[in-house]
């Protein structure tokens, strides 16, 4: 195995493009190094992107935020403006693993690892976040939702990598929330999860809502019907019931060591409902 720590995006892209497969990108390493140890990943080349300018920064851009691909989750929680604008995404990032893991893990890595249970991805999807992707032909921007391909898979080409993620500008009276279910209070992989992103109209009703579910399908799933069920409501029981039904209908989970099909479907609905109320309250909504 070869280890490289390029200084520029172009150099990293060149390394990945020219690499004898398989090559892997190293950001926080909290998935990759575990996979290397267990033999699941046996890369011939590891490209550490942390020394590329900008990859470790969170910057304001067009009213939104650009988060470098090597920003550790803990740094997101220390960024006051980001926390204020996207509390759900930040809380999701700060649920990944332990304090120690959050000191290294990145949401870009969380995305690229391709797990349907990735904690930060439902929030990114509900937020309409985009990823800036570098490859041999330069950079391109792509909605996060379009990167998801299946368990452990993304739509990125083998010689592409995520340089940063972009969270768009927020109108007033907008907020998000993320909840996941795990058997313990910390340290587990989500058994089911839900992120809700709402924008309120001037009258305090929901103008726009996006609901994304994790760990209940081969990829994180944006449930458009669930978001639509909330629009126009003040999170009354009727709207929440309809949203819950839509969420459960969108689930196609598996039975595994972490949970059963029935459990995941039921709990996804419960979490979406609770997350919707939190997001609504954060946005200043009154039921």
């Amino acid at each position: 195995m070869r280890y490289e720590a390029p200084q520029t995006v172009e150099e990293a892209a060149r390394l990945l493009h020219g690499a004898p497969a398989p090559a892997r990108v190293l950001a926080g390493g909290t998935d990759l190094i575990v996979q290397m140890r267990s033999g699941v990943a046996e890369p011939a080349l590891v490209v550490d992107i942390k020394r590329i300018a900008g990859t470790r920064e969170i910057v304001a851009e067009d009213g939104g935020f650009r988060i470098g691909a090597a920003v550790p989750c803990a740094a997101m929680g220390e960024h006051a403006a980001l926390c204020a604008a996207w509390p759900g995404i930040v809380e999701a990032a700060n649920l990944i693993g332990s304090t120690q893991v959050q000191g290294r893990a990145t949401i870009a890595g969380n995305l690229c690892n391709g797990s349907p249970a990735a904690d930060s991805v439902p929030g990114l999807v509900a937020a309409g976040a985009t990823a800036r992707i570098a490859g041999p032909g330069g950079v391109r921007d792509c909605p996060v939702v379009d990167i998801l391909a299946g368990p452990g898979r993304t739509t990125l080409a083998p010689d592409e990598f995520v340089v940063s993620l972009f969270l768009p500008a927020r109108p007033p009276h907008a907020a998000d929330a993320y909840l996941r279910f795990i058997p313990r209070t910390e340290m587990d992989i989500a058994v089911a999860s839900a992120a809700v992103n709402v924008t309120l109209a001037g009258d305090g009703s929901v103008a726009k809502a996006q609901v994304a579910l994790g760990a209940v399908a081969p990829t994180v799933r944006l449930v458009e019907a669930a978001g639509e069920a909330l629009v126009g409501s003040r999170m009354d029981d009727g709207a929440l019931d309809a949203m819950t039904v839509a969420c459960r209908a969108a689930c196609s989970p598996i039975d595994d060591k972490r949970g059963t099909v029935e459990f995941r479907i039921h709990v996804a609905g419960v979490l979406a409902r609770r997350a919707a109320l939190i997001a609504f309250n954060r946005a200043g909504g009154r039921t």
Partner: protein
Amino acid sequence: MTRYERIDRKFKQVGTRPARPDGVDKVTGRAMYGADLTAPGMLWAKVLRSPHAHARIRSIDTSAAEALEGVKAVVTGADFSLPEDEALRDVSVNCMARDKVLYDGHAVAAVAAVSPAVAKAALKLVKVDYEVLPHVIDVDEAMRPGAPVVQEGRSYENVPGGMSANVTSHCEFGHGDLDAGFARADLVVERSFRTAATHQGYIEPHACLAAVTTDGRADLWCCTQGHFMVRETCAALLGLDSSQLRVTASEIGGGFGGKTTVFVEPVALALSRKTGRPVKAVMSREEVFRATGPTVHASIDVKIGMTRSGRITAGEAHLRYSGGAFPCATVDMGAQAAFAAYDLDAVRTFGWNAMTNRPKEAPYRAPGAPQAIYAVESVVDELCKELGLDPLDVRIANAARKGTRSAYGPTFDEIGLLATLEAAKAHPHYTAPLGPNEGRGLSCGFWFNFGGNTCVTMNLALDGTVAITEGNPDIGGSRASISLMAAEELGIPYEKVRTIVADTASIGHSDVTDGSRVTFSVGLATIEAARDAKRKMCERVARLWGIDPEAVEWRDGAVHPAGSNAGRFAPMTIAEIAAASPNTGGPIAGHHEVNADGAGVSFGVHLVDVKVDPDTGSTTVLRYTVFQDAGRAVHPSYVEGQMQGGAVQGIGWALNEEYIYGADGRLQNPGFLDYRVPVASDLPEIDTVILEIPNPGHPYGVRGVGETPIVPPLAAIANAVSRAAGVRLTELPMSPPRVLKAILARG
């Protein structure tokens, strides 16, 4: 057993909380654990393990691995002897498979190479030709005739004919007329329970460093609960003389019973013997889960009858345990412990062990008791609920006490159960209000406690300070307790005593640190060794003073004239006696070698409040209080620590910990990610109430405290969850999917 006098006296140092002698080493990173030692020229060992639950080994081809640059040796089952003794033979087969692999993770070969990376690469080059066989994972399935047979010819004579060859043993305990007892009951509840296999989960994986020389001498450094056990076992597996194998116990990073046997130690020795170089073997966490001892998993039926007033009229339990791929006697202990907390006229327990394609069971803290008592205490709670009775009052009314004929046979001597129950009743926790979706549960717990072979040498330095040499690895602070007892007995400050755990060449055979035996047995031997030393010191002083040894007495760390008739002499302190020792007959030491008995059984009661989320089935432990009789708490902080640590292991067992197998018979969760031990944020404070009802079998009244605390949490939590959820849970762990399913089924 010696019945000791004056065990109830006032102590000056016993009962205080001084700093432990190994504290600074452990907070500075200096303490040396199993994997922390290296040797010049050292090789690294790695073990190849079976990917199959059950398969015949047709052949093993190690030639390609041996040919890899940097590989120095490969061993397989053929490199280890098969001792006559059945238990040792099973250990040998468990350390390295012979003709069959018996579980996913069973060792089949090992390599020694110049680096871990080369060793790992070499494992991939070992070619094993397997004939995969049908497997069986579940104890009830394994007992059915026609089930795949794990090993042939392993059944004891006590197993009736016609059963599956997987059934290795049967036992039955109890007394009285069950039918008459059940007939007297106003309500009989009968339930079936299941408990998953759990792992001890010590944070330090097994690790060792072995060095064998060509003249048959060997040294081994390892983390173990008993280095003498390691010596005897490894010597038998390798055909060495025990005396030529010196085993040094490193600091040990937890054991809980799981380090009372060997896994990689004989393998490292065999590789070292083959290469003539030191060999280090360190297990990965995955290997620890796949190949070292979990508990038995169990399937249990319990039937109990009770009168309307809360008197238990009869109790019956059928326990089916599986200790993995080998015969296992843990069910014997479960069957004896099941009803130990009760004074019953009619009680009967029946136990069965069946082999399954799982790793060989290793003891885990009160082995066999938590499962059995969980089932019994769950049914008692259900009876109380159905009959509208207070569960503590019912336990008090039926509690075993001095003079009770125990359910397992003997009549109880002084036991602390009743006092413990009454302490729980008087505690504010018991009457604190509960909110919606909250429930309170309680359970009694019991463990036998053991003594065993124990050696202590107490050497007096010329300045009058004291070195104690003993042979039991210190897992939870026992060196502090032993130093305290020595200081108390001699009447010198705690700081003037240093206790060390010596290697196998430096002290006599000492049994493993198990059975809650160390503070009891090593403490007893230490006190006796101190008394031996004091006798010698009294003799020396008497000679100096020219009076009879009977005319002097030991008091407050000095020899005094026994009375005014003895003469007028200034007392001689231990330091003065030590300084004069070269002139009075030479060095002074005290010894005690004993197979200690009289450990005295132990009871505890746990109280817990939980909240269950009816929408997710998730349980939050809100409040937890442990009540336990310690006989005498020598170092109360470490007694509390045992109570708290045991309770939390039991909480993990009750709520989340389990071995999960796939249809292919492979373990699906061999890591701390999905084998979910409790983390700090899962837990409330664990309150402790120590009772001290002195044990007459120990000079200071000590009872073992280490194991009992893991017993009650299973039922205490199950009873609390069942009350909070409004539905009786009968399977452990009570993971959220299981609890939610029960809540949704309840409607």
